[in-house]
């Protein structure tokens, strides 16, 4: 073992030995381990030599040696080829790659041999990565080119680039590019493929140690020339393809070409270049011919959505177009999206107008089904063809929304009413003979359409009325379905939207409980009613019920149950007022004086009237009406059905009513309260004026809520937040919001912030 102590070294002698080994290492010749170890120590000895360290000299000599060596390699690689030609099979690439393999390996070994020099001498001079990237005063000017020393391995690579690659660069480029072109059409055998790959790889490797633009050489030598040549080639092919056949044919080939190009890049080029290769192809073959592609979108969409045998073919074409155009970005895709929107919308309007022609008893079913057909058809199409891309699903939503909310002329949009009627139709109890299948699916469908409705507040009014009718008259198909529908609406629109619906639903459950308690109360107190009794107690404010809660004098037969119940209710609750909704009450009567017993279901006034005829066969209208304390028009509504079925007969005097003693009817169960929903439906849909007032109230409340929280807000932000909040109920116009803001400023809830033009502040 030699001493590590610095000593005097004879440079010439040591270098001569070292040089011989270096030549062996670089040439990949066998080197003995002992020799290797000795030379390793020599490097050390030179670096720490006494009195002067000889590291710089060693470095220079090594550089000189490598330069000479690479120059000789250059001769070997060049051989006798004419550099100007570009035949990639002339052997130049083979020789280049074999020299590179040998040299790059050798230099790597050499780097280890010189590791002391690298570590102790070069590292100290090296600038840190951070300094290279961010620059310091010393290195800000071109740090790669100064006289700084490189590690020996790096030095070797640098010399390779300077001495061998530069003179050959044009020749190498020409051959690599032409080899890649050949490989595109016919994959070369594995050996050749490997040579191309390694040649390309060498241009990357040579600079891999550089921090700044390590790929510059590769880009300059390989990528850029390749892309340029490829671009020209693609443009020629594309033009040729377009002349050859129609757009469908073109897209098919272009897509195949794109795949080929990407796989070519994958096989031969570094991963970082794939995007560039792809983009180059897309520029030449797609972007350049975009107008030609766009011109066919309409036709393809029309044919793809048709139901004939060609449609699958067209869908494939369309899908290809999407794949080709999508990478070019949203702007290139826009015509496709617009066309898809226009197409779906036109189709939707056609479906809609034929749906609306159906009889008014069925139009709601056809309406919902039409929208559903539209939605189903195009979401399937767009999913298949455009992979369900956001832009197209957005277009479908837009189209559906436009169709759903379309209105003819001045007429209000019918969607809210029709969808509410559809829900009513689904949720209603129906004859056992004609059950409705897939209730769940139908409700889901209703929600799909519902989400597109702008005027959700109007839908809610219709829905609430129908729900009230179903609940009060017990017409619901199932309470679970009712509840699940309310929950779906809540999921779509939030608590506020379904609050009242929830409360209505809860009232029904509470009422069932209440009846049980009432019966218990009667038993506990030994009380009996003279008739069957069932009551629903509804909370005020939640139910959309018009009509009088008037004090109609109940017939004697009803006074007892009503009185007892009120007594019970007062004992069970406190602070509550109870009002009878007589127009919604029904009584079940039996007619006994006829040969056959008839079961009547009649409104309370009807019961009162009939029961008053218990002891006599005739009465007068005015007397009966006075007894019932009802206004004329509603009285008329109650008497009319009795006359219609012939249970009562008009007397000689127009005021007189006679009981029909020889009454007979085919059916034994008769429902007199004209239509079951008559009472609940009595309040007509709100006139538009009323609706607008509701909306203004809603908006003002929203504005105050927002401002209370934010204190100071700019006009545009306020508008945005209000629109956001109202979206669940309706789509407010900016003009209306402005009016509401003005109104609130007048009422001194807000003020315009002093000194700012478009800012409001909240006044507590």
């Amino acid at each position: 073992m030699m001493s590590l102590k610095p000593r005097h070294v004879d440079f010439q002698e040591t270098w001569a030995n070292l040089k011989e080994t270096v030549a062996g290492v670089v040439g990949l010749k066998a080197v003995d381990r002992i020799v290797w170890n000795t030379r390793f120590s020599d490097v050390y000895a030179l670096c720490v030599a006494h009195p002067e360290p000889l590291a710089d000299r060693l470095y220079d000599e090594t550089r000189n040696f490598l330069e000479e060596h690479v120059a000789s390699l250059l001769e070997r690689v060049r051989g006798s080829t004419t550099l100007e030609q570009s035949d990639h099979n002339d052997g130049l690439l083979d020789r280049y790659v074999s020299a590179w393999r040998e040299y790059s390996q050798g230099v790597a070994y050499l780097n280890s041999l010189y590791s002391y020099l690298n570590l102790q001498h070069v590292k100290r001079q090296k600038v840190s990565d951070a300094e290279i990237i961010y620059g310091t005063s010393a290195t800000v000017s071109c740090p790669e080119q100064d006289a700084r020393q490189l590690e020996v391995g790096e030095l070797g690579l640098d010399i390779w680039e300077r001495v061998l690659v530069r003179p050959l660069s044009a020749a190498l480029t020409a051959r690599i590019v032409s080899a890649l072109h050949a490989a595109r059409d016919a994959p070369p055998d594995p050996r050749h493929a490997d040579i191309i790959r390694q040649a390309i790889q060498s241009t990357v490797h040579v600079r891999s140690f550089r921090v700044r633009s390590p790929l510059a050489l590769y880009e300059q030598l390989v990528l850029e020339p390749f892309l340029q040549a490829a671009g020209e080639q693609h443009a020629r092919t594309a033009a040729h393809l377009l002349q050859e056949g129609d757009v469908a044919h073109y897209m098919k080939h272009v897509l195949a070409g794109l795949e080929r190009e990407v796989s070519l890049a994958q096989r031969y080029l570094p991963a970082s270049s794939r995007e560039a290769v792809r983009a180059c192809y897309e520029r030449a073959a797609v972007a350049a011919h975009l107008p030609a592609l766009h011109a066919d979108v309409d036709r393809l969409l029309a044919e793809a959505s048709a139901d004939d045998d060609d449609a699958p073919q067209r869908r494939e074409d369309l899908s290809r177009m999407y794949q080709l155009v999508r990478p070019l970005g949203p702007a290139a895709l826009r015509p496709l999206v617009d066309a898809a929107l226009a197409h779906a919308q036109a189709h939707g309007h056609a479906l809609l107008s034929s749906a609306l022609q159906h009889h008014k008893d069925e139009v709601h079913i056809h309406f919902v089904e039409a929208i559903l057909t539209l939605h189903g058809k195009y979401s399937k199409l767009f999913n298949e063809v455009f992979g369900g891309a956001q832009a197209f699903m957005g277009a479908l939503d837009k189209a559906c929304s436009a169709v759903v909310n379309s209105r003819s002329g001045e007429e209000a949009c019918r969607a809210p009413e029709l969808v509410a009627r559809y829900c009513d139709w689904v949720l209603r109890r129906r004859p056992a003979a004609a059950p409705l299948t897939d209730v769940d699916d139908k409700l889901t469908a209703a929600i799909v359409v519902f989400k597109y409705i702008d005027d959700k507040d109007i839908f809610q009014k219709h829905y609430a009325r129908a729900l009230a009718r179903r609940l009060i008259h017990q017409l619901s198909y199932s309470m679970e379905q009712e509840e699940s529908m309310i929950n779906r609406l809540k999921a779509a629109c939030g608590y506020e939207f379904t609050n009242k619906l929830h409360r209505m639903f809860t009232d029904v459950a509470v009422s069932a409980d209440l009846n049980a308690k009432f019966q218990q109360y009667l038993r506990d107190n030994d009380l009996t009613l003279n008739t069957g009794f069932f009551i629903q107690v509804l909370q005020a404010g939640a139910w959309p019920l018009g009509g009088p809660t008037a004090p109609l004098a109940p017939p004697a037969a009803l006074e007892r149950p009503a009185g007892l119940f009120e007594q019970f209710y007062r004992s069970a609750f406190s602070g509550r007022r109870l009002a009878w909704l007589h127009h919604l009450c029904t009584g079940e009567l039996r007619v006994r004086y006829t040969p056959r017993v008839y079961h009547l279901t009649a409104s309370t006034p009807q019961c009162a009237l009939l029961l008053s005829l218990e002891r006599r066969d005739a009465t007068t209208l005015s007397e009966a009406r006075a007894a019932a304390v009802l206004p004329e028009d509603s009285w008329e509504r109650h008497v009319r059905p009795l006359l219609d079925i012939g249970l009562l007969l008009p007397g000689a005097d127009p005021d007189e009513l006679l009981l029909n003693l020889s009454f007979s009817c085919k059916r034994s169960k008769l429902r007199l309260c004209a239509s079951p929903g008559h009472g609940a439906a009595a309040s007509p849909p709100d006139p538009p004026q009323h609706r607008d007032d509701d909306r203004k109230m809603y908006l003002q409340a929203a504005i105050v809520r927002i401002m209370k929280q934010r204190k100071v807000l700019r006009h545009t932000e306020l508008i945005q937040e209000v629109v956001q909040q109202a979206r669940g109920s309706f789509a407010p116009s900016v003009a209306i919001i402005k009016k509401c803001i003005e109104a609130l400023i007048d009422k001194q809830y807000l003020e315009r912030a002093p000194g700012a033009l478009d800012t409001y502040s909240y006044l507590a």
Partner: protein
Amino acid sequence: MSGEDCDGMDRGDNDGPKSDKMFTLKKWNAVAMWSWDVECDTCAICRVQVMDACLRCQGESKKDSYGKQDCVVVWGECNHSFHFCCMSLWVKQNNRCPLCQQEWSIQRMGK
């Protein structure tokens, strides 16, 4: 039109013997509406109808879905009425009726 009525079995089963009556009432399906027995429909503290839950409760019942009527009404000796929730917060600051400034004491609670 019959629900699961509670007195169930035709207890007025007087079909047979005393059918001298011309009409008999079998059953009455009544509908009534209740509201708090208040002079003013809105709670003066939160400006919401007393029949609706107060603002605070509305905000909270967003969490538990089926709102039982928890938000009851309270009457003071002065006969003014408010949401109980609103009033119990109010008296912490000021033990007077917000409408008439009388000392607040509870006359009765809604149930």
